[in-house]
């Protein structure tokens, strides 16, 4: 990966408490963001690749400096879970709908005549009697 200064600033979190990436933090004389930007530049000047620079930073400051979870080990769970949940729910909807439809097909009650005026009148009369 041939990362630019901006890419790497985006991949690191500013430690001043602003919660933004190093790139986005624009605090005046930020005690964290500004030195980090300089450190990225000097790492790139050594001819390192993006991965090498990031592993240098996570080694030095701990994993929490990376602005997104890595894609290895337990952190994969962070990336995979949202998509897995959406996919599994889609499958669940498809399966359940098919099953319901089959059940419905097998035990279908005779469809009532929707707008039989005689039946409608009788229903209304019975409901009125019930209300009274």
């Amino acid at each position: 990966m041939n990362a630019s200064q901006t890419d790497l600033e985006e991949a690191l979190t500013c430690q001043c408490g602003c919660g933004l990436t190093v790139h986005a933090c624009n605090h005046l004389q930020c005690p964290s963001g500004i030195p980090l930007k300089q450190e990225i530049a000097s790492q790139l000047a050594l001819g390192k690749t993006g991965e090498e620079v990031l592993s240098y930073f996570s080694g030095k400051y701990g994993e929490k400096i990376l602005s997104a979870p890595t894609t290895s080990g337990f952190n994969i769970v962070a990336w995979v879970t949202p998509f897995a949940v959406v996919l599994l729910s889609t499958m669940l909807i498809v399966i359940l709908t098919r099953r319901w439809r089959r059940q419905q097909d097998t035990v279908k009650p005779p469809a009532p005549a929707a707008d039989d005026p005689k039946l409608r009148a009788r229903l209304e009369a019975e409901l009125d009697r019930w209300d009274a």
Partner: protein
Amino acid sequence: MIELGVLGLRLALFAAVYATVVSVFGARRRRADLVASGRAAAYIVHGLVVLAAAVLLRALLQHDFSLEYVAAYSSSTLPTYYTVAALWGGQQGSLLFWTLILTSMSSLVHLQNRDRNEALMPYVTATMMTTAVFFLGLLVFITDPFQRLPVPAREGADLNPLLQNYWMMIHPPSLYLGYVGCSVPFAFAIAALASGRLGDVWIRTTRRWTLFAWFFLSVGNMLGGRWAYEVLGWGGYWAWDPVENAAFMPWLACTAFLHSVMIQEKRNMLKMWNMVLVLLTFTLTIFGTFLTRSGVVSSVHSFTQSGLGPYFIGFLTTVIAVSLTLVVIRRPLLRSANEIDSFLSREAAFLFNNLLLVGIAFATFWGTIFPVISEAVRGIKITVGPPFFNKVNAPLGLALLFMTGVGPVIAWRRASARNLRRAFIMPLAIGFAAGLGLFAAGVRHYYALVCFSLAGFVLTTIVLEFYRGTRARQALMGEPPVTALAHLVNKNRRRYGGYIVHIGVVMAFVGIAASAAFRIEEQHSMHPGDSVEVGGYTLTYQGIRNEDTPHTASMLAEITVARGGKVLTTMYPEKRFYKRQQQPTTEIALRTTLWEDLYLVLGSYDDQSGLMTLQVFINPLVVWLWLGGITMVLGTMIVMMPTAAEQRALAAALAVEGRAFA
């Protein structure tokens, strides 16, 4: 005077407990007198909370620095409108403000339903009052807004400068109205579950409340974005901060509910799912307040942090446990009368739209809490920041945009080949053409290309709907086009208002995609008289100017903006120093056009050398995000206007239920 506020809160807590107990007891024993007493107590709670809020507001306005809250969040030089805003600027005040909105809504709901929904109302009273008991309990026992200082302060510490911004006057109240608005549909849902009256009545009764909550959640989120854009000064409007996520998640769940509820109204399906969504929405509003107030996840927005976390977790657990128990008990009554006939149907499209909305809410929730999970599992703190949320939510969001085009125009039950052709051939062609055209014009950002193509697709489906509807009226009624269009919208406000909301959504997507993909960002160090070229603009630094008020001291850089040799304007990016809080803030300078925003930030200034650092952002099309928000607001207003048909539907639902339970 302060004692009146203290007494008001204590009595309100007592009255809220009383209202809860007698309402449930009255409903179970069918004792109308107890139910009436519970209702009266709910009104009294409201009155007492109004009194307490008025006392706190008076203390703020009179600069009564013997109160810890007033001394901590205001000062004698703070302008009056921000002094009013200090009511929700700190923790105790914001919880009191929340309770004020909740009890006001409770009174409104009781007034609206004074002679209907007799079976549901006692449980509605009990649910809303239980929520009030929780917040009043916090205010009385844990975090007292009327706490006195041992020695009165001579001057206040002032409101956090970041909150001294006009958007902050309306952003928190708007979000609170949205959050608390969600408690009304929740209360009716719980009432429907508790009473077993799970027909359409609770849904139709709360439809406007749900829209009201959604409206203010949307406005609150938009205003929050706008505030971040203008105040935080990093050129963006959304950083996937835990507290931003906290406001975004209930909006997503509420959006899902607003859509799926239509399926229940039209096809008597998804009853269980709707119930789950409304419970989820409310739970997420409490979770949001918890995130903001507990400090469990670090956030730039957690202006006040405290040990409230365990109480919120306790309340959340109770809400979830009670809701789930009721849903399980009432499961037989939540069975749907109809099932999905085909996956090429509007029902299925809405279901997938729901899945995506809840999926995005889940991904956001997951990313927000993953640092806590990681720490529990591996013992290592990690950060889940914007790159994660953008990568995970962008594909889901684009799929959702696609469904925005499909859902409203695909046929109910089973789409025929003819329906599909008629509804989608032209929109798909225009969407593809838009994408190809942009590709030919040199656009190579693939997410943006997909987003613009989808925007073309969705807009065409909507325009076609308006066009066909208007043509049909013209043919049928012989009306001229403008009259036909006006009548079309007016006769079916829910549908066409909804389309207008969707137009706003498309505009917002376009603004987000363009400003994310094609932003220009440069930093320049300049001496007076220096010029730089950025994105076609010539920026000339004229010099620094200082301004001083009793409250603030400012340093403004004067920048002349020209394009093609013609001077367009002069802009003044500013560093402002708040004297009381001893805190500098960035005040950006902004020039907005429909095409792009020129956004200037004064980075630093060296007095000796006169060297000034200027950050320049050019954010293309970002204004369409805000215009989209305004369009969504207008569309929602059209949808919310009451119609006679809706009143009839509610009356019919009430009659059906009345007979069923007579």
